[in-house]
C-alpha cells in the first residue's frame, strides 16, 4: 500500500502532496508523514522542487486544518441538542470543552507534529469547543510548519534511507500518540472512579473517602 502511494508521489508530485496533507487533517487514513518523507527524497534526487514540495504540503495541511475546525464548529450545533437533553452528557461535554479551552493552543501545536495521529480529532474538538479562531490558526500554522519541515527535511537529508525512516518514525509517532491517549484516558478514568465513589457513599463511607 505504501509502495503504491509512493508511486503516486512520483506520478503526481506536489499536487498529490497537497491532497494527502489536506486529507490527513480530516481523519482520512493516509500516511501523510511518510509520503512527505518520500517527497523530500524525490526533492533530493532532483525529481521534485524542494520549495514546491514544502509549500504544497504546508498549504494542504493548513487548509485541511481550517476545514476540520469549521466542520467541528458548525457540526457541533446538532450535537449540542443531543447532549443538552442529558445532564451527565452535558457535563462531560462541558469538561471536554474546558479542557480544550485551557490546553487548546499547545494541544493544537503538539498534535500537528509530535502527536500527529491525534491532529484531526483535535481539529474537530477545537471547532466544536469554540476555541478562538485566531489562536487556533496561529498555533496550528506554527505546528504544521514544524511537521512539514521535519518530514520533508529528513527525506531530503536522508534520501537513501527513506524506507528506514518511514518504519522508525511511523512507529515512534504511533507510540507517542497511543501513550498520550492511554495516559489521558487513565487519568480521566481515575477521576471518574473517584467521583463515582464520592457520589455513591456506602456504609463504609469513611474508608472509601480515604482511598
Amino acid at each position, binding site marked *: 500500500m505504501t509502495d503504491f502511494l509512493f508511486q503516486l508521489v512520483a506520478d503526481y508530485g506536489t499536487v498529490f502532496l497537497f491532497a494527502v496533507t489536506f486529507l490527513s487533517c480530516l481523519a482520512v487514513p493516509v500516511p501523510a508523514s511518510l509520503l512527505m518523507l518520500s517527497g523530500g527524497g524525490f526533492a533530493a534526487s*532532483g525529481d521534485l522542487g524542494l520549495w514546491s514540495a514544502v509549500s504544497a504540503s504546508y498549504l494542504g495541511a493548513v487548509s485541511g486544518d481550517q476545514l476540520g475546525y469549521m466542520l467541528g464548529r458548525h457540526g457541533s450545533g446538532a450535537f449540542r441538542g443531543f447532549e443538552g437533553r442529558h445532564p451527565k452528557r452535558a457535563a462531560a461535554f462541558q469538561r471536554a470543552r474546558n479542557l480544550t479551552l485551557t490546553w487548546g493552543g499547545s494541544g493544537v501545536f503538539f498534535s500537528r507534529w509530535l502527536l500527529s495521529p491525534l491532529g484531526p480529532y483535535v481539529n474537530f474538538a477545537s471547532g466544536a469547543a469554540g476555541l478562538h479562531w485566531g489562536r487556533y490558526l496561529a498555533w496550528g500554522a506554527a505546528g504544521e510548519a514544524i511537521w512539514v519541515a521535519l518530514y520533508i527535511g529528513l527525506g531530503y537529508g536522508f534520501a537513501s534511507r527513506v524506507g528506514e525512516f518511514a518504519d522508525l518514525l511511523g512507529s515512534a509517532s504511533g507510540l507517542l500518540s497511543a501513550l498520550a491517549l492511554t495516559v489521558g484516558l487513565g487519568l480521566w478514568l481515575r477521576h471518574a472512579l473517584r467521583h463515582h465513589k464520592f457520589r455513591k457513599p456506602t456504609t463504609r463511607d469513611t474508608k472509601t473517602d480515604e482511598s
Partner: protein
Amino acid sequence: MSVAFVLAFLATLFFGVRLIVFTFYWADPEHRFQTLEGWMTPRYIAHSYGLPPEMVAGILDIGQPAAHRRTLDEILRESGQSMADFQRRLTEITASGAADAQ
C-alpha cells in the same frame, strides 16, 4: 471509557514492539542499502546508490533521465527487463566502483 483505555494501551504496546523490531532490523548492516522498489525513479536510485544519474539511465537503456518522473515499474514494464536483472547489474557496478576507488 474503560474499553477505550484498554484499546489505547494495546495500541501503545503494538507500536512499542513495532519500534523495537524495526530498530533491530535497520541496525543490521545488511539492511543498510535500500532494496530497489518499483516506485523509485532513475534519479532517485542514482542518488541513493551514489552513482551519476546517466549511469543508471544507461543500465536501464532510457537515454538521459527524462524530465518527467517515470518510475522503475513503468520503465521495466516497457523494456521487458526484470527487476532482478537490473538489481544485479546495479550491484555489479556499485561493487566495481567501490573496487576502483580503493
